């Protein structure tokens, strides 16, 4: 059984025929070539595959591609409009908020939704917001600083 899945990825309409068991994460990476979305645990624990589906963060390993049919999906590739880094991306760069970079796309997508929905968050709120995203390098300090800096610059 295959199904034709059509969705909007970073503003562009895309289609591919996949088996129903194909996750949104694999759809984005394998079918659409959007390999910025990273896959690690593949069972909803690490947060590295986080994307936005109709503006709300979702773990793309915990969605079937067919469930996202008709939806607007934003991946890390969609954060930099026309190649210009977003305020969040610049702030994360300025605080050296990644080391190996594997968790970075998921962290950024989670933080992008969080910053959109909260004004002037404190450190505790930032830590809670990224509590579902695992980073094995930084110890989180530089990531928290980066998100706080982005909030400050956006205010």
């Amino acid at each position, binding site marked *: 059984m295959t199904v034709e899945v059509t969705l909007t990825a970073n503003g562009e309409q895309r289609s591919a025929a996949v088996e129903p*068991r194909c996750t949104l994460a694999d759809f984005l990476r394998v079918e659409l070539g959007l390999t910025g979305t990273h896959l690690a645990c593949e*069972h*909803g624990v690490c947060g590295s595959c986080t994307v936005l589906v109709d503006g709300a963060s979702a773990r793309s390993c915990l969605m*079937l591609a*067919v469930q996202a049919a008709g939806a607007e999906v934003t991946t890390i590739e969609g954060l930099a409009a026309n190649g210009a880094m977003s305020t969040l991306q610049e702030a994360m760069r300025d605080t050296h908020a990644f080391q190996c970079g594997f968790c970075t796309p998921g962290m950024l997508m989670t933080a992008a939704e969080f910053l959109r929905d909260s004004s002037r968050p404190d450190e505790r709120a930032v830590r809670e917001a990224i509590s579902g995203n695992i980073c094995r390098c930084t110890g989180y300090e530089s990531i928290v600083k980066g998100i706080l800096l982005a909030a400050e610059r956006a205010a």
Partner: protein
Amino acid sequence: MTSQASVKPPPFDYVAPSSLDEALALRAEHAADSLVLAGGQSAMPLLNLRMALPATVIDLGRVAELAGIREHDGGVAFGAMTRQREAERSPLVQSRLPLATQALAHVGHATIRNRGTIGGTIAHADPAAELPAVALLLDGELVARSTRGERTIAAGDFFLGVMTTALEPDELLVEVRLPGLSGRAGTAFLEVARRHGDFAIVAAGAAVALAGDGAIADARLAFTGVGATPVRAREAEALLRGEQPGDEVFAEAAERAARDLEPGSDAHATSAYRRRIAAVLARRALREATP
């Protein structure tokens, strides 16, 4: 189509009904060979890890009539497909059912709650999940429907074991009804987890209602993470009724509640530790709940 080598779920047929009647017909047709996909935040891991091997996946995501929040019996009734994040942000839930708002903050992470549903977590019945304990504490009612008809199941009769409920293989959970508390009442929901948003090692919910003279008219206490199902501490509740609220009486009731628990040991915590934490959380939850 390019490589599917990285896909982990087993092959299955997929159906996405657009009405409840259609969903019920599909559930009747496929029954035990089917898996119902609500928000997918527990079902997808089961598929990815191949712990679930359904012939057919029935996706309820397009059944609009199953989502929605309405007033019910001084409390709230949730359509089973109501997203947890929507429930958490609902002013109606915050005013009528603060215990649900308090507990929802502990359900996974915000990203999980964006997709996770009220009905999904109840029907999945994970022994460490928060909302089953809330339903039990509030004497909630779970509405099940099949092509054979509709029935209402009391929360106390619904949770039968680890991920096992009173739902029949052809039934769908369609509504979760949580009555409000009457009078001068307060609630609290406290949890200990390794990391915020992780599954509870132990969580305790409490409700305390006071009479005109300040004595406890009604006290309720429920735990999750301490056994195969959520547990209501009825003997501890009985101890509290008629007493003046205070640290001593709360500590006594909390100890009593914890003594009756038989939590398991696992990699996260021993049975003795869980019982200890249960007593501490119960005492604090009763104190916090007191209006």
